[in-house]
């Protein structure tokens, strides 16, 4: 059902984008160009290694966020995207959200995974350090995302924050529509155990993140 809603939102964006423009031939509308771009993309790639052409198919979140071209989504659209993604989170059946922070550190460091040049047999990491400062010992960190140093120390160690951290890693769009952060669980990048381990890296009082 949310799929249909997002589609209509998408149409709204496209229509708004064109409103006020001079009379344009149908092929030159924004929607026409987007359709041509998609067809062109699909004709311009070849499957290689683990990366099949199906990776060019967008789900509704990807489609709506692409159409925004890096602009923040209007609030109403953001709420719909977040609600839809939140509903798709699979919480661990055993109710435990924290794994082993030491493993979590390895997963956060690991840059390999899902590229056609990577071994499909693994390892598959999260490369959190590509975008975040996390443990202070690692100085080679990126700045696309905010610093996560002292994450639980600042935000608290309680069950609500644990749940937020797990949900965020599982599906980042559930909390920030059209974020650049990957949806590690939703898109099957990390296993449930791997997600618990990186959540422990952020949440465990023994983790260097909170020292």
């Amino acid at each position, binding site marked *: 059902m949310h799929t249909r809603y997002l589609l209509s939102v998408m149409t709204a964006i496209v229509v708004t984008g064109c409103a006020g423009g001079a009379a344009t031939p149908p092929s030159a509308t924004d929607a026409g*160009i987007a359709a041509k771009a998609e067809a062109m993309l699909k004709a311009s790639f*070849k499957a*290689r290694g683990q*990366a099949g052409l199906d990776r060019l198919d967008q789900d509704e979140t990807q489609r709506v*966020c692409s159409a925004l071209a890096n602009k923040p989504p209007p609030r109403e659209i953001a709420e719909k995207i977040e609600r839809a993604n939140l509903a798709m989170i699979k919480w661990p059946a055993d109710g435990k959200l924290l794994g082993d922070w030491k493993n979590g550190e390895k997963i956060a460091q690991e840059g390999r995974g899902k590229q056609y040049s990577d071994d499909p047999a693994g390892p598959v990491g999260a490369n959190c350090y590509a975008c975040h400062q996390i443990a202070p010992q690692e100085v080679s960190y990126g700045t696309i995302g905010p610093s996560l140093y002292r994450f639980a120390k600042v935000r608290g160690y309680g069950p609500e924050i644990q749940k937020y951290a797990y949900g965020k890693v599982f599906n980042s769009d559930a909390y920030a529509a059209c974020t650049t952060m990957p949806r590690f669980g939703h*898109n099957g990048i990390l296993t449930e155990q791997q997600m618990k381990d990186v959540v422990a890296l952020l949440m465990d009082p023994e983790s260097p993140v909170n020292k």
Partner: protein
Amino acid sequence: MRSHHRRAAQGVAALFILAAATALGQGSPVDEIAKYRAALQDGNPAELWEARGEDMWKQARGPKKASLERCDLGLGPGVVKGAYSELPKYFADADRVQDLETRLVWCMVTQQGYTEADAKKNPFGAGNDKKADMEALVAYVTSESRGIRMNVPQSHPKEQEAYRIGEKIFYYRGGPHDFGCATCHGDDGKRIRLQDLPNLTKVDGARKAYTTWPAYRVSQGELRSFQWRLNDCFRQQRFPELEFASDASIALTMFLARNANGAEFDAPAIKR
């Protein structure tokens, strides 16, 4: 040009020392890179590719034993000077927008008699084991636009359409990581690990990035074309493999090249 080769070799040695210093954390990597680029300005190993490409341009090659000296890169048959700073553009004979590589393939097929598959066979080199003719030709042609301002046209409807499609492709998010170009190149002052990321959605970032490709990559000992840059960023984006000289690659190049208009072209450059 050739007299620079020895200097280039010394330059490479200096570069490794500087790279090592950077790894030890002396000074910011950005400063160090700026320093070694300045130190090497007149000794870039890319000159080896430029010289090889110039020879290749002039040699009679292919089934028709013809040189490329009658190839029209947009400014008339055989005109190389300044041609790259106006590409991609619409070519009436091909009835499509072409970037440099697509145009070179076109000339290799129509004038030298290669099959299209042969002309596209080996687009990217791999050190001394696998030298790519294409990257040498690209090095030569681009070097002849050094110092000339980017002036990519938008007069033909197909040029306008290529730009708009390229823009859509730039923002197209997909794959297991939801990445699009703008994920890594949509904001000012960001980095991945310690790697600075240009903001390609802004004029400044687009200019600086576009006008410094192709580049000799020190870490790879190889000259890399813009087609290679796109191919490798799509790999990091977790997409399947971008086909060499594909329509999407041309549209994306049109988008970025046009956004660099007005800036002085300054490549082949030298990069990390």
